[in-house]
């Protein structure tokens, strides 16, 4: 489990500020994902990446930006935070997209509060 970490674990920010959430994995997994977890909505995919320099939108990408210059890192940036982005954010990684080996490994989460 320690192979995927997120920082910070807790963050309070103000509306309009830029915030970056970090995600780092030590397994050299090809696939990485960002989710947000909200009551009543479960887990929703924000962005994902199939490899370094390859990213794509998920279900709820508006207001977020990602990059993946290195395989092990997948930062998520809120360009101008809004209250609706208050949530718990989870990063995950996966070695393969082949079904039999499909396991997403999740980080501990970042609790973000936008005031």
């Amino acid at each position, binding site marked *: *489990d320690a192979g995927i970490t997120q920082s910070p674990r807790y963050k309070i920010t103000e509306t309009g500020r830029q915030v970056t959430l970090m995600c780092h994995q030590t397994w050299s997994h090809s*696939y990485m*994902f960002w*989710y947000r977890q909200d009551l*009543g*909505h*479960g*887990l*929703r*995919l924000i962005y*994902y990446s*199939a490899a370094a320099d390859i990213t*794509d939108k*998920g*279900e709820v990408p508006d207001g977020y930006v990602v990059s993946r210059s290195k395989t092990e890192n997948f930062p998520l940036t809120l360009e101008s935070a809004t209250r609706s982005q208050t949530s718990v954010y*989870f990063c*995950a990684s*996966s070695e*393969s*997209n082949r*079904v*039999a080996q*499909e*396991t*997403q*490994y*999740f*980080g*501990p*989460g970042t609790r973000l509060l936008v005031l």
Partner: protein
Amino acid sequence: AQRVTQPEKLLSVFKGAPVELKCNYSYSGSPELFWYVQYSRQRLQLLLRHISRESIKGFTADLNKGETSFHLKKPFAQEEDSAMYYCAPKNMTSNTGKLIFGQGTTLQVKP
């Protein structure tokens, strides 16, 4: 549109009772299906995957293509089963590795 529904937000049972967490999906093609679990103060983790036909911690999940359901079952619930459970289909027409998670069901097993 791809959709997965877990109709119960909260399921409360007594220890030793059978439990069934419902999952219905609406997908084109034949998705593969997974259940993930999040215990208190632990990370979200894979519980079981349909393709492996496995039983994990006494849980099984049967795919019913006719009803497009993938309900998670356990004959005798234990207190340590209390957790949040997510059903997650994977679109087999896509090569992205993406899962779509349901809204989640909180299972509460009372002593």
